[in-house]
C-alpha cells in the first residue's frame, strides 16, 4: 500500500458537498421524493408497506415531540430527541426479525417503536423514575446505554452467543458518530471480526456529538473503518427510509448467513438539540439545519406516496388521529407515572442478595420509621417520610435547575 494511494483527505464539510449522490452513498429515494435505483441494493415494497413506514415515522416523530413538550412542562428531567433520524431508525428497525437482538444508545426511540416497546417504557429514565427497567428479553431490545460505545461490545458478545447456539438470528448495535472514537467500539469491531459474529454495527452519523462535528472524530467517512477490521462497510442515506431498510436487510442477511459483521453508516442529521438541556446556537449555524430540513425523511416519502397515489386523505387523516391518540396516551401515562418507593433504592442491587444491602435497608427503614412519631425541629426541612420525600424528589428531578447552565447539567 503506497503512501500516496491511501493519503488521507479531510472530508469536506458544508452543505453542497454533503449530497446523497456522493460516491458510496446508497440512496433509493431522493430528497425530492424521486425513486432511484442502486446497483447493489434494491427494494420492492407494497403500498401497504410503504404506508407502514410512513406511519412509523410520523408516529415516532409525534411521540418525540410530545416528549419534548413533557420535558418543557417539567414532567421529564431530560429528553434526547431523534428529530431528523426517523428514517435511519425506522428503516433499520423494520429490517429486523423478532429473534434479532437490538442494542440501542439513548436515542433509539424509533427503533424501539419498531420492536413494539411501549413508548412509556422509554420515558421512565428520562423522568427519573428508573434507569431503564423494561425487560430486554421481552422484545429483544436491550436497555438504553448512556455510556458511549459500551453497548457495541455487549452486542458483539451477544452475537458470539448466537453463533455458539447455532441460531440464525443477528444483532444490531446502534452507536453515534461521536461513539466511533471510543476504544470499546474498535474492540467490538475486533471481537466481531475475529469470531465472525453475526452483528451489524449501525452508526447513525448525525454529524454532531453534542457540540463537536464529525471532523473531531474522524477525517474519513466512518463506514470506511470497517475494511481495516476485515468486514464490509457501507454508507447509506440515513434520511431515506427505503435505502436504510434495504441496506440493513442486506447487512443482517450478511450476518445471518455466516459472513460475519458489517458496518452501516447512516448519514443523517440531528435536527434538534443534543438533548433538551443543550443549546446548539452556541456552536452551529442554523443554515446547516435549514439545509437538512429540505432532506427531511418524512416529507420525501410523503412526496413519493402522493406522486404515486399510494395514500389518500383518509390515510393521512387516520394517521393524524392515531398520532393524537398516541400523544395523549404518552402524556397521560407520564403524568400518572408513579415515583418509586423509597426502599426501591435497595432493590435489585444484587440478584442473589448481599448482607450489607440487607443491613442498610433495615437500618434505613428503621430510620425512616423514627420519623413516624417525632423528631422535633431537626425534621423541619424535608422530613423524609415516603410521600413528602417523593414529592420533593419530584421537584428536584424537574425543577431545581433554575438557570440555563443548571439545566445543561442534567445529562449528556
Amino acid at each position, binding site marked *: 500500500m503506497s503512501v500516496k494511494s491511501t493519503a488521507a483527505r479531510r472530508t469536506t464539510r458544508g452543505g453542497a458537498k454533503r449530497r446523497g449522490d456522493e460516491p458510496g452513498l446508497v440512496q433509493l429515494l431522493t430528497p425530492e421524493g424521486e425513486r432511484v435505483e442502486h446497483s447493489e441494493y434494491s427494494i420492492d415494497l407494497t403500498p401497504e408497506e410503504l404506508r407502514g413506514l410512513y406511519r412509523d415515522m410520523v408516529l415516532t416523530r409525534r411521540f418525540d415531540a410530545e416528549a419534548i413538550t413533557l420535558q418543557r412542562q417539567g414532567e421529564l*428531567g*431530560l429528553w434526547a430527541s431523534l428529530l431528523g433520524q426517523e428514517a435511519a431508525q425506522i428503516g433499520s428497525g423494520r429490517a429486523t426479525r423478532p429473534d434479532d437482538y437490538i442494542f440501542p444508545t439513548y436515542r433509539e426511540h424509533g427503533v424501539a417503536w419498531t420492536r413494539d416497546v411501549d413508548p412509556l417504557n422509554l420515558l*421512565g*429514565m428520562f423522568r*427519573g*423514575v428508573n*434507569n431503564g427497567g423494561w425487560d430486554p428479553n421481552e422484545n429483544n431490545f436491550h436497555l438504553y446505554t*448512556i*455510556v*458511549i460505545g459500551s453497548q457495541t461490545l455487549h452486542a458483539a458478545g451477544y452475537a458470539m452467543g448466537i453463533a455458539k447456539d447455532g441460531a440464525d438470528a443477528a444483532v444490531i448495535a446502534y452507536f453515534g458518530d*461521536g461513539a466511533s*472514537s*471510543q*476504544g*470499546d467500539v474498535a474492540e467490538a469491531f475486533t471481537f466481531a471480526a475475529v469470531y465472525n459474529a453475526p452483528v451489524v454495527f449501525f452508526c447513525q452519523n448525525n454529524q454532531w*456529538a*453534542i*457540540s*463537536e462535528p464529525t471532523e*473531531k*472524530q474522524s477525517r474519513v467517512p466512518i463506514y470506511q473503518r470497517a475494511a481495516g477490521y476485515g468486514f464490509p462497510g457501507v454508507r447509506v442515506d440515513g434520511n431515506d427510509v427505503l435505502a436504510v431498510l434495504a441496506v440493513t436487510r442486506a447487512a443482517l442477511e450478511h450476518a445471518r448467513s455466516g459472513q460475519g459483521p458489517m458496518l452501516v453508516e447512516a448519514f443523517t442529521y440531528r435536527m434538534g438539540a443534543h438533548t433538551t*438541556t*443543550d443549546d446548539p446556537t*452556541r*456552536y452551529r449555524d442554523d443554515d446547516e439545519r435549514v439545509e437538512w430540513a429540505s432532506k427531511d425523511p418524512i416529507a420525501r416519502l410523503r412526496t413519493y406516496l402522493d406522486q404515486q397515489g399510494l395514500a389518500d386523505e383518509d390515510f393521512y387523516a387516520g394517521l393524524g388521529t392515531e398520532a393524537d391518540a398516541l400523544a395523549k396516551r404518552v402524556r397521560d401515562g407520564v403524568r400518572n407515572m408513579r*415515583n*418509586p418507593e*423509597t426502599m*426501591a*433504592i*435497595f432493590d435489585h*442491587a444484587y440478584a442473589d442478595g448481599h448482607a*450489607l444491602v440487607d443491613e*442498610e435497608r433495615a437500618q*434505613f427503614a428503621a*430510620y425512616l420509621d*423514627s*420519623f413516624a412519631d417525632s423528631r*422535633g*425541629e*431537626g425534621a*423541619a*426541612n*424535608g422530613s*423524609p417520610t415516603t410521600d413528602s*420525600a417523593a414529592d*420533593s*424528589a*419530584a421537584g*428536584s*428531578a424537574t425543577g*431545581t435547575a433554575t*438557570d440555563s*447552565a*443548571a439545566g*445543561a*447539567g*442534567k*445529562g*449528556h
Partner: protein
Amino acid sequence: MSETATTMAMSKALNQSLRKALESDPKVLIMGEDVGKLGGVFRITDGLYKDFGEDRVIDTPLAESGIVGTAIGLALRGYRPVVEIQFDGFVFPAYDQIVTQLAKMHARALGKIKLPVVIRIPYGGGIGAVEHHSESPETLFAHVAGLKVVSPANPSDAYWMLQQAIECDDPVIFFEPKRRYWDKGQVDVESVPGDLHKAVVVKQGADLTLAAYGPMVKVCLEAAAAAANEGRDLEVLDLRSLSPIDFDTIQTSVEKTRRLVVVHEAPVFYGAGAEIAARITERSFYHLEAPVLRVGGFHAPYPPARLEDEYLPGLDRVLDSVDRALAF
C-alpha cells in the same frame, strides 16, 4: 479579602481560574469533550476557546482514555494539560490511563519526568440527572498512590485550589461538586491561598465534629445551624483534600470535641469515611467518647433522580448520626 474580592458562583470562579492559568502559563492547555465553542456542558470553559483558540482549548474526540493518554503525552512534551471529564460516570474509560500511567510514571522514571496533569471531574448528585451523572467515585482515585485528590466546597476554594492544582507537578484529580456550581461566594483573586491539602475549620464547635468535603460541607453547616437550635455546638471541617488527608486538623478537632461524624455522598462502604474513622480512631483512641460515625451513600447503584433526595445524605440523616454519636 475585602477590596479585591467579588461575589461569584463556583462555576464562574472555576472559569476565571482557568482563564488565569491560560494567561499566565502558555503551557497550560484545556482538553475535553465540548470544552470549545460550547464552553463545556456546565459552561466552565465558557469563552476560553474564543479567547485562546483551538491550540489551547481543545475539543477532543469522544474517548476518555484517549484524552488522558494524550494529555500524558503532552505533559511529557512540557505542557500542563487540564482535562475535563464531562461527568463523574464517564471517567472510567480513562481509569487505566489514570491509575496505571498517569499515577505511576513519575515513580517509574525515578523522578526524572513530571506529570503535571489536572483532571477536572464534576461529581456528585442532587441535580436530577439520568444515570452516570451523579456519582462520587473519589476513593477510587484516592486509594491510588501517585495521584492527589482534592475537592473545593465554595467559590473561593474552587478558584484557588484549581490554580494550585495546575501549578502542582503531580497529577491532581480535581472533583467539582456540580450541585454547588451555582452557589455564590466571595472570591479574592489577589489573596494568598493556604495549603492545597489543608483542612479548614469552617465552623467552630465544642460538642462534636462534622467532617465533610465538596457538596456536603454546606449540608453539614446547615446541620450545625439546626443543631444549634437544639443547643448543640457542632464543629464543621471542610477537608478539601482526600489525598493526602489533613489528619492533623481532624485530630485536633476531635481531641477537642471527642466525637466525629464523617459525611459524604459516596457510598459508606469502603468510602472516605472509613479511612478517616480508622486513622482518627488510631490516633485519638483515648479521646473518643463515641465511635466515628459515617453518613453517606448506600451500597446500591445511585438511584434514579426521583429517589436521590432520599438517597443523598441530608440534614436529617446527619442530625440522626449526631444524635447517635452523642448518645454514646
